[in-house]
């Protein structure tokens, strides 16, 4: 049964031409009067992609989802789903399903009726409808709840019902609008895993909006980072994490955030010499990057911003890859977090977080050697914030 279901859900996608993106957004703009919410958005996903739209609140990610879903009218640009232009198509005719932040269950209908609503609209015969509802309920483990009213369900159960309603119709594309934000922290993690499992099992194409970068990192096959209605970067979680396109992405993705500091970069042959000012009249700290990106060469001698993930600043411990590039640093604050110990250091006019081992025996006020992993350095233009 379950097997049938799964293959059935997959079957539609597999017939599509592989090269055609399941969704493509071209030069999409959305304004309310003079207020531009979305600026020239272009993005596309392939069948089976799990695309996460992430960004701070007000960045336009939910509006973009609304445009894709057809709940919001676009000002200009094009939307294609499965190759068909749906820019001005009714949400009903886009072959998509959506899971809302508030779940948006119909309070006057039972769980079964909620799940079967889309089928009822399509006038699917009752018997067939019931069969599908049962399959989905099994899949989501909510069979015992089918006769209940939404008001009688817990948050997690409602969440499942909302997903059930989306799944039962087997649409081309699923939209999730911050589906976990109303759940408590623990449930959120459980559901996150479950959504991921569901995605893998059904190979569904999903667009998922969240402001939580951890959710984005864990779930996505492809992340779109947005700010002020503009796409900052599109990439796999790895790309986004390792090579953020700009300071904003660097700062937004990852926790604790990437450290951004002022530095002066000069070229010494093919090696970049990075000079970082320190406080209290100590001599500047100098790192050497043997393989800097090409952009740096042109900018040598200039003041730049460099970005270093906390895990690029570690204690000597076992991982002394570039043992030569370590410096004694004064630990301003030490925050043990179990698996890791975070330490705040003042460097380059900023508070910099270093990620030490969980069992590192250090205290605030101590001076310990910190090892810098120069291969992980990102360089940014201090004016535009763009990656160099």
């Amino acid at each position: 049964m379950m097997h049938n279901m799964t293959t059935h859900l997959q079957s539609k996608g597999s017939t599509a031409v592989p090269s055609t993106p399941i969704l493509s957004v071209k030069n999409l703009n959305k304004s309310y009067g003079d207020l531009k919410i979305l600026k020239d958005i272009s993005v596309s996903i392939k069948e089976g992609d799990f695309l996460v739209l992430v960004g701070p609140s007000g960045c336009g990610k939910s509006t973009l989802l609304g445009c894709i879903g057809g709940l919001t009218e676009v000002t200009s640009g094009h939307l294609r789903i499965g190759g068909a232009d749906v820019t001005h198509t009714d949400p009903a005719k886009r072959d998509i399903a959506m899971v809302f932040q508030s779940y948006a269950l119909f309070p006057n209908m039972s769980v079964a009726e909620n799940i079967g609503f889309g089928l009822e609209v399509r006038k699917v015969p009752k018997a067939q409808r019931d069969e599908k509802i049962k399959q989905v309920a099994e899949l989501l483990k909510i069979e015992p709840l089918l006769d209940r009213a939404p008001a009688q369900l817990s948050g997690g159960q409602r969440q499942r019902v909302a997903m059930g309603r989306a799944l039962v119709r087997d649409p081309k594309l699923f939209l999730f609008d911050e589906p976990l934000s109303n759940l408590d922290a623990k449930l959120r993690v459980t559901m996150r895993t479950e959504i991921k499992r569901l995605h893998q099992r059904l190979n569904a194409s999903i667009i998922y909006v969240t402001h939580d970068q951890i959710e984005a990192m864990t779930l996505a096959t492809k992340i779109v980072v947005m700010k002020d209605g503009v796409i900052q970067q599109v990439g796999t979680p790895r790309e986004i994490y390792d090579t953020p396109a700009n300071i904003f992405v660097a700062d937004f993705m990852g926790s604790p955030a990437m450290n951004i500091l002022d530095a002066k970069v000069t070229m010494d042959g093919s090696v970049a010499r990075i000079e970082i000012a320190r406080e209290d009249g100590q001599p500047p700290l100098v790192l050497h990057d043997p393989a800097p990106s090409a952009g740096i060469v042109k900018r040598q001698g200039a003041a730049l911003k460099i970005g270093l993930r906390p895990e690029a600043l570690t204690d000597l411990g076992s991982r002394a890859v570039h043992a030569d590039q370590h410096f004694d640093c004064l630990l301003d604050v030490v925050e043990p977090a179990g698996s890791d110990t975070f330490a705040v250091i003042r460097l380059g006019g900023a508070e910099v977080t270093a990620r030490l081992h969980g069992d590192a025996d250090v205290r605030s006020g101590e001076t310990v050697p910190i090892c810098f992993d120069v291969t992980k350095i990102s360089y940014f233009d201090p004016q535009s914030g763009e990656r160099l």
Partner: protein
Amino acid sequence: MQRSLFASIALYSAALLLTLFTLAPLVWLLLMSISSPNDLTAVPLNWWPNEVNLSRYGRLMDLNEGSGQRFLGALRNSLLTAGGATLIALIVAVPAAYAFSRRGASLALLFAFLATIMMPPITYVLPLYEIFGGMGALNKTTTLVIVYSAMLLPFATWLMKSNIDVLPVEIEQAAFMEGATTAFTLRRVVLPLALPAIAATCMLSFLVAWDEFFYALIFTSDLSAKTLPVAIADFSAGRVTDYGVIASVGVLATLPPAILAICFQRFIVSGLAAGSVKG
């Protein structure tokens, strides 16, 4: 919080005074309707009837001998006009309210709707009289139903709009997403959610239509269409020496709205409050 004795006395006195002020005229109307004519013309009055006299109610219900034809005819007309107008107003107002609330229809238009009820009926009555007269539609219940539904419509639209505004929009979006048409969504999702508001709007509209006098006075001329208010006005100004009869007509005409108002009080208050608080 503990109240002082003085505050308690003041509070209960105020409550008592309010009860008296509210109930006295009603109780008196009821007493008049069952008092003998002699008790009613005593000076000073016999407040409590010497005997209970229900004969007037009997006469009002008697189709053959008494005033039954007049009274019951008017009652029927009032029920038909108020009920019909409420129904039509609701059927027309709900989609309009939805357009204002969810389809971005200009609020200026809603204000234009409301402006139509701000005009005194006297502004419309003569042209309407001529139009309906020209169509041979005066003195017809249907005509009153149409006029009343126009009278109820703006308020009903506004009330429904304010109430739909506070419904979670995502639920409707979910329905659209699931492929439902607007009509289907309205019927299957919005209306069930707005049921309390609909009940309130129905009650209020019904009461307003039940109360209407001016159009009815001018547009109706006989038993086939006269509503209760007009019948009562005629009744009370004619050759009536027994005030108890007038009182009993008054009591009977008050019963339907009073029962509705008490039974659906919660709806009325919440519906109105939503309307006015939201503005």
